[in-house]
């Protein structure tokens, strides 16, 4: 999934003649992680704000567990989104070759792995 054949979310032209960079976009696993954890974070935060009741408080020992977990999850999701934005995975092989030829690092290596 680190390529984007015909992927609408990719930022390069679709016609294959491009020498511009393609990013993995929605195909990048970081997008999925940020999306799902972010969704969970939002739902839990709302649950914490409106749904906290005595039953829950007895279970958690008086912590608003949903609220705090939700906030942490939102922070994690934002961190992933930032990472994705700062270090996109470049997948177009033409672009990769070109960049290597120019002696600059290609985007996929720039992602800390």
């Amino acid at each position, binding site marked *: 999934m*680190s*390529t984007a054949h015909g992927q609408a979310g990719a930022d390069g032209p679709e016609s294959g003649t491009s020498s511009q960079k393609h990013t993995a976009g929605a195909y990048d696993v970081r997008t999925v992680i940020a999306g799902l954890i972010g969704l969970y974070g939002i*739902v839990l935060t709302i649950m914490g704000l409106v749904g*906290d009741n005595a039953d829950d408080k007895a279970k958690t020992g008086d*912590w608003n*567990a949903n609220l705090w*977990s*939700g906030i942490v999850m939102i922070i994690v999701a934002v961190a992933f989104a930032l990472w994705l934005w700062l270090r996109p995975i470049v997948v177009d092989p033409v672009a990769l070759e070109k960049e290597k030829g120019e002696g600059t690092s290609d985007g996929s290596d720039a992602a800390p*792995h």
Partner: protein
Amino acid sequence: MVLAADDTLRLDANAVDYALVVAYFAVVLLIGFAARRRVSDSLDFFLSGRSLPAWVTGLAFISANLGAVEIIGMSANGAQFGMATFHYFWIGAVPAMLFLGVVMMPFYYGSKVRSVPEFMRRRFGTGAHLVNALSFALAQLLIAGINLYLLATVVNALLGWPLWLGLLIAAAIVLSYITLGGLSAAIYNEVLQFFVIVAALLPLTLLGLHRVGGIGGLIDKVQAAPGGDEQLKSWPGTGLTAIENPVLSVIGIVFGLGFVLSFGYWTTNFVEVQRAMATKSMSAARSTPIIGSFPKMFIPFIVIVPGIIAAVLIPSISEAKATGGTVDYNNSILMLMEAVLPNGLLGVAIAGLLAAFMAGMAANISAFNTVFSYDLWQQYVKKDKPDGYYLMIGRVATVGATVIAIFTALIASNYNNLMNYLQTLFGFFNAPLFATFIVGMFWKRMTATAGWAGLVSGTLAAVLVAFLSQDAFGSASLGVLSLSGQGASFAAAGAAFVVDVLVSVGVSMVTAPKPAAELAGLVYSETPKEQRTDPEAHLLPWYQSPPKLAGISLVLVIILNLIFR
């Protein structure tokens, strides 16, 4: 929480919880569909086209193992034996993962094999290959079935769905995401699953700690409980091994669990190694298990610690422990979830557990279809067909394996113990495999005959020890040796290793070795340095250099061992 009269576990999940679970599965299926768009040739389907970055495969590497057996089993161990359970991670898994990355991965990745059995074939010929490929394929089917069964029982316990419905739905979801996207989809899901599991278990652990009065409160309560101080020490772990002599117990843990069982599992199990093979460079392949070792060493805090908390917080477990009554420790983590998680977090936790069990099964099946198509079908049934043919065989194998797993799961539901013993048995294939690999990689004299003879005799030695022990095979065991429980497994694995090495050396002495020219890439002394190393390795910064990362990981795990001794 509702405890029904027959003591069945029921979580009162509400609409929000269900919605969170459904959201997870929707994403899983989307990943499958997205991955499908780029599956072009068979290498892509099986090994992800060798294109994934190391942090992704590193997380997939530990996620593939973080399935039902790990989460349920390790928290149960924590509840029953306390801190000695940490050995599974800090003596067992982490050193073995580092060894795989530093020493063994250059051979796997550098020789361009597509599976671990294929390495076996190139080094030792078809005898050892067939033994390895068949036992591996069988074990995967069985373990996939066990994962599926555990999944369905959890669905049943948590949501009240009947077993067969849970089985069918889970199997259908796993099947669709593997056949759609191949290994890429499985790996992406594993990475996603890792984060969901952490999101589920970390709050569970913190809330549990809060409820028992923090770390100090937990220590006080465990000390006051039966077992007391014993449960707060990891050495000599006599409770865990059931070996009374402390010296022998330590030897059993270090040699049996640490060296043989864990090294055998982590370095030769294709389910794990396959994830590293999906990377784009030698350095990334070597980094995969090493990067995985960092989160791995902290997983016990969110898996074992909840078990320990459950043992003091949940009345039915602590009472059973105090009075010597029976309790199913396997339910520890579920009971803790039910006791401390509010609706909302509960949904995340259910999603995380279901995800873990399905990913475990998906990992078994994706490894199975690689070995089945390349190592069994292509090698022994139909050679020299075009790529697309083996891709098709892989898809058929996936469907077949899933259907078989449903039946194994049904058998497991009727003969629970039988399945445990079979799993013990398959565990015994790993120990001699490791011995054969390690001798074969570093001793060019080792012959093809020695390859399969060592494997077979090592496995038989393990089975023999298990039969002679008190209970490794349940009532079928004879009880001649005073070994029981996990100590018996450690001893059996140790015996397998020693016998395998002795037989391999003995047989090699009287049979003809392979010509040295055929061993390039397979044996240390015959492999040119360029093939074992990444030509661009010196360009990598320190945080991407496998040996340096491994060093850091080793220091950390030693510190953890010293703190929690």
